[in-house]
């Protein structure tokens, strides 16, 4: 570790030599606070227009989207899973039991103090899909953000299975990216994943095609 320690010293010394005088932390912070931020932070759309925009963006990415009533969550989840031909799904341990329709197998995963060890990637690969909630969603970009918070589970859970059904509450949808960061900021140490549509690539002739390594199929239920 000796050489690494001297590398550290040398890199920092070289940076300071190039930059000249150092500033104390308070002055750096004051300078940071004075940086121009005249971009749009707060949204301007009505709730209705915002949700419509969110729906349109998700559809453009090739996700299935449906507005559903709060008391119909369980039924709508059942409908989506049946339509996708899914039988066995992995879910975060804290997903409300009231969401889970009969006739499907739900395997809870992750969380502290469980009796069975968490599923390995290969086992998760054997599942038909994953069902989760989210932390926040952005209408302008059609993005949904997971932060390993309530109803979201570990990162592997929404990555390995080929299908993801995500429940978003209308109140979780913000209009702009900066608004989403205002929500995420207090929990920024949690693993954070933005996903915008199913996995895709444009590496061949710049054509966006759905489905590479992440879930190839995505449905979103927006609960009013």
């Amino acid at each position: 570790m000796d050489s690494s320690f001297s590398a550290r010293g040398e890199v920092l010394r070289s940076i300071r030599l190039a930059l000249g005088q150092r500033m104390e932390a308070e002055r750096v912070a004051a300078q940071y606070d004075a940086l121009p931020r005249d971009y749009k932070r707060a949204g301007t759309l009505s709730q209705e227009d915002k949700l419509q925009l969110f729906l349109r963006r998700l559809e453009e990415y090739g996700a299935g989207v449906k507005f559903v009533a709060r008391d119909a969550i369980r039924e709508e989840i059942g409908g989506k899973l049946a339509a996708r031909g899914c039988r066995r799904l992995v879910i975060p341990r804290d997903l409300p039991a009231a969401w889970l329709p009969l006739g499907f197998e739900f395997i809870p995963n992750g969380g502290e103090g469980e009796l069975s060890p968490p599923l390995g990637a290969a086992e998760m690969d054997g599942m038909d899909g994953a069902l989760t909630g989210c932390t926040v969603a952005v209408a302008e970009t059609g993005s949904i953000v997971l932060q390993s918070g309530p109803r979201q589970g570990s990162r592997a859970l929404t990555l390995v299975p080929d299908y993801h059904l995500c429940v978003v509450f209308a109140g979780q949808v913000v209009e702009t990216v900066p608004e989403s960061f205002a929500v995420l900021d207090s929990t920024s140490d949690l693993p954070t994943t933005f996903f915008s549509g199913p996995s895709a690539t444009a590496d061949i002739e710049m054509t966006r095609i759905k489905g590479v390594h992440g879930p190839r199929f995505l449905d979103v239920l927006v609960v009013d």
Partner: protein
Amino acid sequence: MKPAVSSHWSDRDFPEAARELLEDSQTRSNVRHATDVIQAKRDAVTGELPDWQQLRDAGEAIRAHSLAHLDFYLEQFEQACTRAGGQVHWARDAAEANQIILGLIQRHSVTEVLKIKTMTSEEVGLNPYLETHGIRAHETDLAELIIQLGKDKPSHFVVPALHKNRMQVREIFQREMHLPELGERPEDLASAARSYLREKFFRLKVAVSGANFLIAENGAVCIVESEGNGRMCLTLPDVLISLVGIEKVLPRFRDLEVFLQTLPRSATGERMNPYNSIWTGVRPGDGPKEFHVVLLDNRRSPILGDAESRQTLQCIRCAACLNACPVYHQTGGHAYESVYAGPIGAILTPQLHSLEEGRSLPYASSLCGACYEVCPVKINIPEVLIHLRGKIVEEDQKTLRGQLGIWNLGMATAAMLLASGARLSMAQRMGQIAQKIFVNRDGMIERLPFPLSGWTQTRDMKSLPKQSFRQWWSERAAPSEASVGNPDRAGHAAGRGGPDGQ
């Protein structure tokens, strides 16, 4: 001294490499198609944002501020990342970065690792280095996989295989994945890549990545991607090693609200790319058990000392300048003979080599300014290009070879001629006589002898007129006050009653 491993591939200069590529019509048409498509999408999704310019201003200010206090923010990052369970390593140069990464891999006794696309690892030559130590690195980004299996080099740093079309990709996959029946639709090709890599994602224990951003306040790392290969690599293996240039640090988590808007819109013309991952250190039960960040200098720090070119390090690698550049559009990326191609490569590569290599690159531009206009962090690339040209000329002039070089002699001659009216008119008169045998019927000169042949090699030149302005001026009647031969002008001048008329 030349670094052991270099981001600059050969000693060929840009014109030489470009000439070869200009003859490759297939590559040129692939590059043209791809850059046209990205450009159009980028223009649409940046144009729809009323605050696009304000986002650029904020992006520029945040990046410039981070660089101005880089030592402060790097130390802050190191502390926060360590507190979150990550391990931070520092590498002065490419060789040191490679040694650190190899050591970390060897600790886990594996012979295969996963890779997320990282230009920084191309810069340090990580894959060939690991290969010589018996470790196979599997590229998992689709384009990088195409490059790796095709034994090719990246030509663009967002879409490294942009110079290959679907038929060429299919040939590579058919051959290397043993899939003779593979179709040619992009869907077929993506699905072949999925099956090829999936087993590796589940089996391999160590992954190596780059990073788009480091967050000083909480030690977070951010990776922006499309396919989910990044998420696989940073979630499933036990060990993750991220190699990151020291310039990539941002002060706070919320700064991402700017760059996660400008980067995807500039890079792929999407409002948001499919996946962004941000994580801090290690989290029990979720993701790798061991996380390392290798901070790479590799001659970045001296660039900070040059006030005019420091902005080069503001780059967030969106490649919008490549797509917008009329030179890149014609030659593609390989002509730059460098990991970093296009306008940003033309300023970054020579500086990463302390101007010892890539000296022709600052000239690989018409200075049209398209790169500056699209840059989401407002790097004034033309300004830096000119600055670097100036430095190169100054250095050249210190050597005898440079002093006797054609450009220096030509410029010295021009300076001598232009400094005096008498010398200029003498030169004009000589030119009028000497040009006679070169002027064609249309009054154009198509070919001049050496050393002026360089000019006429790619363009025709208008011949000198029979009479120069100075000759015309001196041969007419001496221009007395208010009688220049044009009644309008005379009247105007007389009526003006300015200081001259009084």
